């Protein structure tokens, strides 16, 4: 689960990590008023849960209160990669001597947390990590030892600091690790963390992703997980999550559901292979009940941009008769408002097919055949 920049900064400040002085505004007037409490120049920053806002104009600088008001007005009228901006963070602009990077995330292959530091921070850090990985200093973290002062100092030293500045920077690294462990982060990064012209360090931008699997022990985050507008999820995605379904919205016009993440991904791939375009990814999971199938299908039917639906079930723990009954339940309630292709094999297949056949619904055997058919139907 992603946190907004302003949330991230508030949390880091709670761990005594220096962040720029600032406040959150939802209107130009409020921004102006808040700016009057700050020392110019100001930075006005769109609060969106998406990367690339800088390039999209979502960060602007202002020297006067009026400029801050105007910048806020512009940004609040903006859509960044399709997302409306509801809030801006207005801050004292940091006086940069040097932009650095520091982050903590997991290393899937080494099966541990890893700390990453770089002497060059900012927008291109992912590019640097990808193209010249040796510029990224990496420390694997043994969970039985943790990330200690000496690990932090070693990293701060390797990116070129010594003396008091090295100690200051290392102390911030250590605090970030403490935060990361106490909050089960999947990723936390200060990018950039800035060395200011007066020799201090400030987390000028911060990004936090909390491990979704650990949200149950962090009620302060989990309570907002499925509240509208507070997360990166679309309304459809929130609806699906509330129903316990894994759902991702896509751009195409064929609604797709199936059981099992890999199978659904493969179904999407098959649709594309036959030159179709998936409208979504919807995994009902293992052993879905009639009502879950019903809920899932209802979500697909409600998606305006799709012109056909493909259901791909390979029954293992999932029982085909439950699936059949779920499909009928939806039809009885809302009707089939668009063409639906169903592939249904596996556990209790005969019973499932019988139920659907009695209702006049035809069922296919092969996933590839079904994908081909769905692509045809989506063309109308």
């Amino acid at each position, binding site marked *: 689960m992603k946190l907004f920049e302003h949330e991230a900064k508030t949390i880091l400040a709670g761990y005594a990590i220096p962040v720029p002085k600032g406040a959150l505004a939802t209107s130009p007037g409020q921004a102006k008023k808040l700016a009057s409490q700050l020392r110019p120049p100001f930075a006005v920053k769109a609060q969106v849960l998406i990367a690339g806002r800088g390039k999209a104009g979502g960060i602007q600088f202002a020297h006067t209160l009026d400029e801050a008001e105007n910048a806020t007005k512009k940004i609040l009228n903006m859509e960044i990669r399709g997302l409306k901006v509801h809030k801006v963070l207005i801050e004292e602009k940091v006086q940069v001597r040097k932009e650095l990077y520091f982050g903590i995330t997991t290393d*899937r292959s080494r*099966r541990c947390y890893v700390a990453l530091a770089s002497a060059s921070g900012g927008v291109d850090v992912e590019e640097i990590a*990808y193209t010249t990985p040796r510029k990224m200093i990496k420390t694997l973290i043994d969970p039985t030892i943790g990330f200690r002062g000496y690990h932090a100092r070693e990293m701060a030293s390797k990116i070129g600091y010594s003396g008091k500045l090295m100690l200051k920077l290392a102390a911030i690294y250590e605090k970030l690790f403490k935060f990361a*462990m106490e909050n089960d982060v999947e990723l936390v990064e200060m990018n950039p963390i800035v060395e200011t012209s007066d020799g201090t360090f400030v987390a000028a931008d911060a990004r936090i992703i909390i491990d979704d699997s650990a949200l149950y022990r962090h009620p302060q985050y989990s309570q907002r997980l499925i509240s509208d507008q507070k997360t990166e999820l679309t309304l459809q995605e929130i609806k699906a999550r509330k129903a316990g379904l894994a759902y991702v919205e896509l751009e195409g016009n064929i609604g797709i559901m199936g059981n099992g*993440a890999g199978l659904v991904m493969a179904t999407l*791939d098959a649709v594309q292979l036959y030159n179709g375009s998936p409208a979504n*990814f919807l995994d009902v999971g293992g052993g879905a009940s009639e009502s879950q199938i019903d809920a899932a299908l209802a979500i697909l039917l409600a998606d305006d941009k799709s012109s056909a639906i493909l259901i791909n079930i390979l029954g293992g723990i999932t029982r085909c008769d439950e699936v059949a009954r779920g499909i009928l339940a939806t039809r009885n309630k809302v009707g089939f408002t668009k063409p639906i292709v169903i592939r249904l094999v596996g*556990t209790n297949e005969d019973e499932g097919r019988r139920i659907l056949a009695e209702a006049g619904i035809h069922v296919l055997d*092969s996933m590839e055949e079904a994908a081909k058919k769905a692509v045809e139907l989506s063309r109308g």
Partner: protein
Amino acid sequence: MGIIVGKETRVVVQGITGTQGSFHTRLMLDYGTSIVAGVTPGKGGTEVHNVPVYDTVKEAILRHDVNASIIFVPQPFAAEAALESIEAGIRTVAIITEHIPLRDTIDVLTHAKRKGATIIGPNTPGIITPGECKLGIMPSHVFRHGTVGIASRSGTLTYEIAVELTKYGFGQSTCVGLGGDPMVGLSFVDVLKMFSKDSQTRAVVLIGEIGGIAEEQAAEYIATKEFSKHVVAFVAGRTAPSGKRMGHAGAIVIGRAGTAKSKIEAFKAAGIGVAAKVSDVRKLLAGGIQEG
């Protein structure tokens, strides 16, 4: 033969009294798996399908000869259940439970490594050596005894492919579900090393998906270590957008990392046939086996 589990596997089921635990205990027993004990704290002294239940793994081990564990314990307690088995000296632990916090998984895998235990999962359908032992929740009927080893990051997709393979006469040596969580106990490379030593296995199918670099590492291993058995790969998620989890916590493209494209290219560069669709897997397999 096959790898990790076989006729000699004797299982304790952790969380045996729960709905899933009890249901799959019956299915595993039906398949012929030796389930010798179950554990549910507070339910010691009872029985599930004639399997005696204990309060702790240590007690189960004290009374029975156990060498594997399968975990159906709910998410908040699953990692601790794995530690319990690891500390008790069990060398094979399959964690069916999904969505285990990363920190807990790291703990489990760290201690497993120290004690030399093999962890399958979390978020795995388990492992099956057809005809010998099923330590998992996969539908048994799709598998047949044979010579193809399967390692997969996905459950249902594995069944889909196994159905095809079985139908066209490619039985399996062992099928391992690595698990859909971002961090799991076994990598493709780990499993390839085991298949390499297994005389029953003559070819291997790797079922990958987006996220991480396990497929790229497998491709590199096969290319540089001269893995001598025939390998076919399938990668799900060609159409997945960046930054979205596709059902599995581990199935996510981050920036430019973890794409299906990168994985497919890595496999191809290593000379491995990559199936564009499910039905291609058996075709590539047939080609390779004829060649080999």
